């Protein structure tokens, strides 16, 4: 059997398929659908220092092959996460990555410290790129110095493997990727949803209560593939692709572009079993093509 395992800092994954933050709840929701032992890991909904209700309706709007969301980081908060969600996550047979965000550099550090110390948390993913909240998030993700600061502060606060999730709407993602790598990130996720907007021409109001939102789904995959490629050219730390992956073919494509792992996000809504199907498809593909180690795939695109 092909070895699909992936090492990201101190985090070991059985295979490179992770479920993306905000698209897989706290895992228990998919218990009847997903055999967790078939995927690499789950990434939780973004956790904040305090619980958040999120934005009012409407929060999602579908566009051509894409989805715009402005959920507003509706989450249970770190306290309730530990009390009511972590027990379940501890028991599932795959890696558990906790996505988190705060409104200040110190906030990130405090939360990284708290979450990183929880038994059952295998890695942290710092969301420095959420387009859907008024403060915190995206402003850290578009400036290399700010991104490095948040990374460094979080890094110093915990020994837990640290993934930093970047913004896609930058002209030079390589610059941010290497700033974050230098500041101590074990890996980067490329990328969060792409800031977007849709307007109801009848009411003349945005389709989402928040105004803007983040675009995800197959529509954005070609853009994210390019961002993954550019990030891989700029840094040596592992890259986790996130944006539009819908099948094992897309997983292979992202890996060829330079990703070591791939997140299944919006596709979970289209097909809740997608993550397992992606992992199984990847395995079959590797077996049929004589690929013994994923290193033979990562970054193996032949550019002209």
């Amino acid at each position, binding site marked *: 059997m092909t070895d699909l395992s992936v090492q990201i800092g101190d985090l070991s994954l059985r295979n490179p398929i992770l479920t993306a933050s*905000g*698209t*897989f*709840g706290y895992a228990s*929701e*998919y218990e*009847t*659908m997903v055999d967790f032992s078939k995927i690499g890991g789950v990434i939780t*909904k973004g956790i904040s220092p305090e619980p958040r*209700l*999120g934005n*009012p*309706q*409407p*929060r*999602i*709007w*579908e566009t*051509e*092959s*894409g*989805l715009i*969301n402005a*959920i507003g980081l*509706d989450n249970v908060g770190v306290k309730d996460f530990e009390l009511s969600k972590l027990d379940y996550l501890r028991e599932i047979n795959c890696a558990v990555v906790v996505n988190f965000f705060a409104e200040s550099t110190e906030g990130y550090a405090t939360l990284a410290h708290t979450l990183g110390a929880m038994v059952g948390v295998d890695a942290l993913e710092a969301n420095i790129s959420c387009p859907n909240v008024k403060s915190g998030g995206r402003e850290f993700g578009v400036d290399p110095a700010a991104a490095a600061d948040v990374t460094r502060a979080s890094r110093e606060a915990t020994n837990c493997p640290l993934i930093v999730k970047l913004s896609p709407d930058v002209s030079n993602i390589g610059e941010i990727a290497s700033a974050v790598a230098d500041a101590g990130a074990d890996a980067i996720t490329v990328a969060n949803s792409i800031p977007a907007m849709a307007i109801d021409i009848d009411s003349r109001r945005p389709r989402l209560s928040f105004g803007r939102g983040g675009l995800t*789904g*197959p*529509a954005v995959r070609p853009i994210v593939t390019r961002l993954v490629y550019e990030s891989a050219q700029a840094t040596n730390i592992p890259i986790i692709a996130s944006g539009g992956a*819908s099948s094992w073919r897309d997983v292979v494509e992202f890996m060829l572009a330079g990703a070591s792992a791939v997140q299944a996000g*919006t596709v*979970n*809504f*289209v*097909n*809740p*079993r997608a993550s397992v199907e992606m992992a199984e498809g990847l395995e079959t593909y590797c077996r049929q093509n004589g690929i013994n180690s994923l290193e033979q795939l990562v970054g193996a695109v032949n550019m002209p």
Partner: protein
Amino acid sequence: MPALSRIPLEAVEEAGGGCLRLVCAPASIVAPIPGQFYMVRGPWEADPLLPRPFSIARFRTVKDEQVQLEFLLRIVGRGTRLLGTAHAGIELDVLGPLGNGFEQPPGDSAWMVAGGIGIAPFPALTDAIATSKRTLSLLVGARTEAEIPGFVDFETNLTGGVEIATDDGSAGFAGTVVDLLASRLQRATEARPSQIYVCGPHPMLEAAAAVCAGAGIPCSVSLEAPMGCGMGTCRGCVIQTFQDTNFTVCTEGPVTDANVIWSSKPAP
């Protein structure tokens, strides 16, 4: 326990009032509870992307414990248009049953109040209540006569009768179905129902809930909200209750007691 099944479409039929009946082939799946819903997607490419939520309109268990699902739908946008032009034989991805359904009424009689395609869950509810020999009425409203959805042969079980309301007065009561509900509750001749079930657009539910609260009759609503996942994970369907708490329509609803969402104090 929701499951994801690929089920061939057996028939697509006009159901009156511009609505369509989608009948699935019998499949080895668990039977739903009336009021539960399914996320449904046809065999197209990535646009439209997401499955669409539909209430179970009717279901029956056929030979070998196979369950046959039936949906009633109104064409309003891109996804329903494609489903409406689908032909027998294509396969649907059907995720469900999802959410919470209706409960049996506490007493002998119950009313169902439907706004337009809000009639969808009521054939199944009627089937379920009819077995318990209760008196059941249907109040159904639409903008105009031509838009009144078909009744899919469940009139026979509507022992309490059917009343129609049209905004333009082209058929039945002239006014909204909530106006009809209020006026019927005031009619001295009418026995008061032990339970009122309401399904339709959000503002109609709120108005009906207020009428029921005023009359002191338990009101069970089937909520609608934009849905991404149907499983509680995307948080797209979450609404805020009068107590400023989140209510996840797909998992805590779609059916819920109205006073979970709106203050049960009657409007002043």
